[in-house]
């Protein structure tokens, strides 16, 4: 099985430890992933801004970079969702279709492709899980609170298998954090307010470590946590599952 790791641009630049943890975690689970150096971005920033056409060369580049792999795995539900859903505007060659269907979010890959439901290790902290919308509602990795019947979430299940972990019960289980890509600057006021409310839910319910499957939401929430000096540690789920210390 040939697996490539896709590390989204902002993770590459600002959260390299998330890329490292993803790589190491996969390795522990018996998958040696490549990191093709040519990779850049999935094109989502342009597309979400209404400039989908401008993103086409980036889409082509993405497909060219990853076409020879069986799977493309990324620690970012939002980028994966974008590749799967919005690469529909380029010519649907077999290569494009192959890349689209085989690009998977890290936890999804671990759960559905590797069939892993438990991760050995311990993490004796009170952990608050941020369910990112694109992973949850877009890729159906967890139950959407709007939809019946209630299903189990992939990441919650994996995290629960860590010894000593205590998961926070939030007042609003899956409310959006307000990041939304360029929304975070275009609608700065509402975005910030949403993030503050989200963080407050975690504070109220005792979260010590805030985690999730999508670094973009976490970047936004971390920005608020640090501005307010709340002392909550923000870590990507790959770091927890990989056994990184707090």
């Amino acid at each position, binding site marked *: 099985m040939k697996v490539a790791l896709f590390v989204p641009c902002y993770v590459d630049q*600002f959260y390299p430890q998330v890329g490292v943890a993803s790589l190491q975690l996969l390795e522990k689970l018996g998958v040696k992933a490549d990191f093709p150096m040519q990779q850049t971005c999935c*094109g989502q920033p*342009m597309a979400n801004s209404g400039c989908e056409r401008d993103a086409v060369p980036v889409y082509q580049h993405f497909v060219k970079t990853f076409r020879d792999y069986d799977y493309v795995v990324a620690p970012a539900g939002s980028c994966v969702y974008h590749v799967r859903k919005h690469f529909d505007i380029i010519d649907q060659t077999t290569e494009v279709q192959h890349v689209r269907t085989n690009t998977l979010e890290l936890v999804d890959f671990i759960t559905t492709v590797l069939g892993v439901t438990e991760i050995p290790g311990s993490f004796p902290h009170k952990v608050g899980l941020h369910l990112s*919308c694109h992973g949850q509602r877009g890729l159906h990795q967890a139950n959407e609170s709007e939809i019946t019947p209630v299903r189990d979430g992939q990441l919650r299940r994996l995290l629960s298998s860590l010894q000593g972990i205590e998961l926070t019960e939030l007042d609003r289980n899956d409310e959006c954090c307000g990041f939304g890509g360029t929304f975070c*600057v*275009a609608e700065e006021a509402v975005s910030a307010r949403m993030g503050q409310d989200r963080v407050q839910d975690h504070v109220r319910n005792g979260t010590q470590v805030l985690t999730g499957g999508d670094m973009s939401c976490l970047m936004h929430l971390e920005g608020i946590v640090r501005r307010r000096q709340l002392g909550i540690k923000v870590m990507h789920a790959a770091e927890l599952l990989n056994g990184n210390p707090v």
Partner: protein
Amino acid sequence: MNHSHPELAEQFVKDAERTTWHDETLWFVRQKRDRSIYAIPEFQELRELASQIKNHTLSRLHTYLTQFEEAARANGVQVHWAANAEEHNAIVLNILRKHGAERIVKSKSMLTEECHLNPYLLQHGIQVVDTDLGERIIQFRNEPPSHVVLPAIHLKKEDVGETFHLHLGTLKGEKDPQTLTEAARLHLRTKFVSGQVAISGVNFAVAETGSVVVCTNEGNADLGVTLAKVHIACMGIEKLIPRLTDLGVFTRLLARSATGQPVTTYTSHYTKPGPGKEMHIVIVDNGRTKQLGRPDFRASLKCIRCGACMNTCPVYRRSGGHSYDFTIPGPIGAILSPNIDMHKHKSLPFASTLCGSCTDVCPVKIDIHTQLYKWRQVIGENNELPASKKWSMKLLSRVLSSPGVYGWGGKVARESLRLLPHGFTHAKALNPWAKAREMPAPPKQSFREWYEQQNSNGKA
């Protein structure tokens, strides 16, 4: 007047306490909705069925409209067609003139709001009284509704007390909902009795029977129609459903999605005029066929105006209905409005994080967030984006399609963030991110730099 959502929203959010209250009130409604739908095992099947019925109806709208018109006429109802708001208003005025009516009562209708019927009738010397409590409150205040089901949800009971004090002479400082409702009821009674014509909206129009169905919780539509000599029902062409047996699917979904009730208190069917009375139905297009002709946005016409997408939308809850500056606010309004005026409403499809909650909550399965995404592209292609955004996205595309430039650019950005003073990188005027958030702490090495190092060390 400024119509841009970010600016209007920023004004709203500035009142942090009111924002909290608005958010929590609507979230409470959303939770009531959840409880009531979790209790129905077949809820998803109902949604699917409703969606299919609506898709089917829209695909043969012409046939059903014709069938509806024929059936209604056979029932003795006078049917009128209006291509746009102006025609709609003129038709209504004409009927009123024919009866020499000067005072009319109206029960909540978003369509007449959309057509700006009230100011039009006022101009022509006709007194219009909205009989829905929420509608009446905002009518006193001369404000548009801020929600399709809860038109005065932006107001606290203190605001209502103040309004009633000014207009109904209730005690200053009175804010007890019971007392205020009582005052409104007494006031409205006199209006009902003197109303010569009653105008109502339409929730569903049944093609097979030619009847219209109105759902209310206050019974005000019934009261108005029963007491008046003439009933005018105003409906958009998308209100049709084929058969009476389809209705149950929608009434079960509507109230549950809207307020979490099993069904609205009153579900009134109007089929023919009473003895000695007249009944009119005005069927309005006003941009709907244009939307029907846009394949990507056609599904927005399935909307049954339950308001669930507003209650669930985290942006709506924190920016208020008026920030959308359109008759229908919230996620669905943001896909209906650019169809009417793309230039004016160009910021609305961007007033969303595309979280998808609206799509998941929608009882008729409108792919709302997908349509928001698509409107963004249409707006981009129509040159309605700010020049700065347009060019920065072109530049970004160049950077991101060439790995060399990207690696170098990222490094420069990271280094500048590390080396430049915090006051500069976080200057609020230059960096909107930094108004309420810290920038990420820049690491020494990017992931790719680490990876390369590992490789050259022969470790990776």
